[in-house]
């Protein structure tokens, strides 16, 4: 269904652009963008690789710090009081304003982009993981304790698997926004990457190249999302079959 709607919209775009003979530098027809992607595939691939590296590194940093912070917040009251409000406050600072500063502070290379990606995507991971760890049924914890389980065993057997569905929700949101982070990082100062390519192409009226970059970026984001969703499906079989059972009303 979404593909059908998309095809219709693209077709309409093509038709209107041709009917009104809109100049290509203003709005190229989809067919021209298609040509651009094929013609500049080597260029796009080279810059996409750079952006992918930034996203992957930033995402990894976000995952590690996000999970670490969530654990600290969930199990250490001082951290919950001290860190959690700061984590939330950090999201009210516009990243686009800090990005140029990061450039000044850490340099012109990969690092400021990785930091921007991490800053923008660690937040949904922390918030969801904290919710997941807090949602664990205390009676389940007591049941394990009465069986003689140590704190570590309770953590591994109840808290970790119980919070995984929440963690994956957070990671999926993070995956979607991490690409945006990379582009912001590249806009404020870079010598490679799809964001850089767009900034270079736009003032030269290479509008179809801008669109081509956007498409590749979007594909990158979708691919990352699907990757996470696939990992979720593999590791949370019980969760999906439970959701199905609920949807079919097998267990009212």
């Amino acid at each position, binding site marked *: 269904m979404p593909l059908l709607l998309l095809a219709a919209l693209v077709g309409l775009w093509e038709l209107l652009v041709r009917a009104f003979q809109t100049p290509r530098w203003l709005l190229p027809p989809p067919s021209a963008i298609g040509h651009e992607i094929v013609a500049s595939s080597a260029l796009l691939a080279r810059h996409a690789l750079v952006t992918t590296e930034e996203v992957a590194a930033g995402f990894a940093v976000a995952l590690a710090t996000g999970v670490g912070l969530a654990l600290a917040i969930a199990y250490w009251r001082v951290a919950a009081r001290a860190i959690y409000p700061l984590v939330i406050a950090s999201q009210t600072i516009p990243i686009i304003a800090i990005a140029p500063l990061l450039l000044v502070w850490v340099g012109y290379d990969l690092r400021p982009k990785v930091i921007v990606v991490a800053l923008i995507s660690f937040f949904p991971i922390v918030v969801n993981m904290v919710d997941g760890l807090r949602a664990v*049924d205390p*009676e*389940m914890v*007591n*049941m*394990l*304790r*009465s*069986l*003689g*389980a140590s704190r570590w*065993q309770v953590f591994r*057997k*109840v808290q970790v*698997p*119980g919070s*995984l569905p929440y963690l994956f929700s957070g990671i999926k949101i993070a995956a979607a926004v991490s690409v945006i982070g990379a582009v912001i990082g590249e806009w404020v100062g870079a010598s490679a990457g799809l964001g850089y390519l767009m900034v270079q192409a736009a003032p030269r009226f290479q509008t179809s190249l801008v669109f081509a970059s956007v498409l590749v970026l979007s594909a990158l984001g979708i691919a990352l999302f699907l990757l996470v969703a696939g990992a979720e499906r593999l590791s*949370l079989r*019980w*969760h999906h*079959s*439970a959701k199905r*059972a*609920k949807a079919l009303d*097998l*267990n009212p």
Partner: protein
Amino acid sequence: MASEPVLQLTAVAKAYASGQGELRVLQDVSLVVRRGEMVSLIGPSGCGKSTVLNIVAGLEEPTSGSVALLGDGANFRDGRRLGRVAYMPQKDLLLPWRTVLGNAVLGLEVQGVGPRLARERAEALLDTFGLSGFAREYPHNLSGGMRQRVAFLRTILADKPLVLLDEPFGALDALTRAEMQAWLLDLWAGVGRTGVMVTHDVEEALLLSHWVYVLSARPARVQQVVQVPLPWPRSRRMAATAEFTALKASILDVLWDQQRLAAPPEAPHT
């Protein structure tokens, strides 16, 4: 039947700090459970029956009084009871991400029993617990009665000298409940378990246990101790005898008096 005691509570009292002063839940609970005996606790709702089990399991400590788990020369005083008794809480508390088998072996796993041995021991009992063919199902695919039997299997497999059951059939419909009671009687006849069971069903208490302790309204004291004169093995038919009915009526009288004293509707769940 004068076998050695496995559990001894002496003048156990429990109070919680609450908004205005303290909430006294248990005032004076003393009881003895001997090897091979089932003891039922019955009382008005909200009287603290579950608190007794939480204390015996080691999840909570009494404010005063003593708890002793005895037997095999061991004597585990306060604070060392966690992991020494098998506790089956009111809710089945099955881990939704584990299959029937995975849930059943939880206690063995915590004790460090190897996965293969643990699985073999669980599989050997699946049939007895009416779960054969369901080993690899997730809990959400099971009926309430089956989930309860999985929780039971997990409790029995933990292999402890004392079993604590908190309203084991409370969440089930009447028919499933009767079925489970009959099943439990069979199981008991086979393995001869020692345990404490909390229930609010007088018939269930009489049918399944050697002793019935009737607790007062909160703060709970032991109001009456009844030795059930029925022979073993028990069967559901015994509930129809005149003797049984008279006993049930006398316990209900005590309970009703206490229920009137108990806090009105908003009383928390036991």
